Structure formats: structure tokens, C-alpha cells
């Protein structure tokens, strides 16, 4: 009977180990996160993602360009497909983000037959000019973001998005 009982010393040992373990994990977790985070973040800002769009085939009419990259969120790793609206402007290539500045729906070029030369957001009828400028009187509060672009061997590379520099 007596050897199944937990002695006072054992009890204290267990409790202290428990608390100590808890404290140690409290200290270690941020350290592990700190060490692991940069790995998880690889592929984020600063990198250019290749697309299959040939720059020589671009015209002044915006076309949709899709690209994929890996994204890690928590332990959930997924392959994300991104989209850009891309067109040529003189000798410059412009790539706009399709994410509506109202609440984040995906906008389409010429998505509304009444406004064939604008981007259209189907969610609340938001509209943007070709350069991304939001049309006043529609819900969006700012212009579409712009991608950094890079051209290599006639192929389009997309970088990070930045606030629109065209409007």
C-alpha cells in the first residue's frame, strides 16, 4: 500500500518538474520560432516568381497572368495561385494586382459590359481605370496595387506588390 502512495518529496518533485517544464517551454518556444521563422518565410518578399507570359506577346490590352508559389501558414502548406493583370505601356510593362481595394474580391478587366475599358469588381460593382485608379462613386477607396516586374529572356517575373505608382 505504502509504495503506491506518492511521498511528499515525490509529489514536490513532480510538481516542480511540471512547472519547470512549462516554464522551459515558455522560454524555448519563442526561441524555436525565432530560429524557424526565417525558413518558413522563404519565398515571401523580395523574390521574383516566374510566369509563363512572354513579354513580346503583351499588348496594351490587359491580360490575366497566373503564377503559383508555395505558402506556409502555421503547419498548413499550400500551393497558392496568384493572378496579375498585365499590359504594355510604351516600353514599360505594367502588372496590377486583381485584389479589390474595397474588401478583397478579384477584379476583372472589362468584367462589366457597360464599362469595357475598366476593371470591374463583381462583389459591389467597384470599378477602376486601366491604370488602377479607382472610379469615384464606387466602393473602392484606393487604386489597385502594382507588382514589381522583371523581364528575363522575354519572360515576365512578378515580384512583391506595392502601392500603385501610376496614378
Amino acid at each position: 500500500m505504502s509504495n503506491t502512495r506518492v511521498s511528499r518529496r515525490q509529489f514536490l518533485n513532480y510538481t516542480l518538474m511540471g512547472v519547470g517544464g512549462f516554464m522551459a517551454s515558455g522560454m524555448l518556444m519563442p526561441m524555436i520560432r525565432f530560429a524557424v521563422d526565417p525558413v518558413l518565410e522563404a519565398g515571401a518578399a523580395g523574390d521574383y516568381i516566374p510566369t509563363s507570359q512572354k513579354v513580346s506577346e503583351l499588348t496594351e490590352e490587359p491580360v490575366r497572368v497566373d503564377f503559383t508559389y508555395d505558402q506556409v501558414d502555421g503547419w498548413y502548406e499550400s500551393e497558392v495561385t496568384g493572378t496579375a493583370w498585365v499590359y504594355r505601356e510604351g516600353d514599360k510593362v505594367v502588372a496590377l494586382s486583381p485584389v479589390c481595394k474595397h474588401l478583397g474580391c478579384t477584379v476583372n478587366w472589362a468584367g462589366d459590359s457597360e464599362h469595357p475599358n475598366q476593371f470591374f469588381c463583381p462583389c459591389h460593382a467597384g470599378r477602376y481605370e486601366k491604370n488602377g485608379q479607382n472610379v469615384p462613386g464606387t466602393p473602392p477607396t484606393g487604386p489597385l496595387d502594382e507588382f514589381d516586374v522583371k523581364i528575363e529572356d522575354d519572360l515576365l517575373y512578378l515580384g512583391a506588390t506595392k502601392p500603385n505608382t501610376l496614378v
Partner: protein
Amino acid sequence: MNWTANDLDLYMQQQEYIDTALIPLVHIGGGGAMKQSASSAEFLMNLSAFIERQFKGRVVLFPAFSYTDGNDKSRLASEWEASISDMPFKHVFYLTTDPSWSREGIIGDAIWIPSIPLESMDKKLKQSVLEDQVRQIIPVLTARWTSE
């Protein structure tokens, strides 16, 4: 919007714009139907995620409502409907690959899409198949938005 704390924060502030609940109905089959039901679920979840991204600012994608053959569908439907009607959504879209919901009139306006096995497709094909499907569903959604 997704069913995450951050997205729901935004939802709370913008309820007047984010007025639609999108609820995938997923059948969990047993025995010989397991793989088939997994394939349908895979398709439906991919499709829902796609729709969510297109309509992020108007739609809240719910975690899938799942059911097995043992569930009484009419009962589930009325229980779900009762719970959802407590939430301030103007539109509720049920999305499913199981034709019985709408065919038997259990949820008359459930949107049925035939399941397409994505598991054997490569990324590109998958993407374009899903796009085609979404393109077919969009008019259904917009019609309901404008009519109701």
C-alpha cells in the same frame, strides 16, 4: 472571407457588404463509397476555396457541413437553417455535389455541381477545370444576388 478569427473581425465591421454565407455540404461515405466521397469532397473544397477568393468581399465560406448516410437529411437541413437564420446573412448558398438535396427538395435551392475527380489531374488541368466550373456557378450566384 474564410471562417477565421481575423476574417470574421472584418466581417463584423462590414456586414452590410459581406452578406452571403457559402456552405459546402460534404457527404462522408462509408465502405465502398469512401474513396468516391473523398474525391467529391476534394473537388468541392477546392471549388469553394476558388469561389471564396473570387468573392472574398461578399461571401463567408463556412467550414463544410458534413453528413453520413445515417443522418436524417431533412432534419439536418431544418436544424442548419434554424441556426443560420440567427446569423445576419442576407443570402445563404449551399454548395454540394450530392444531387439529393435539391432533387428531393430538402434544400430546394442548394446549388448542385457534378463532382469531377481532380486527383488524377496535374496542376494546370486542375486549375482550368475548376475555373470552368466557377465560371458556370458565377451567373447562378449573381442572379440570386440581384433577384433576392
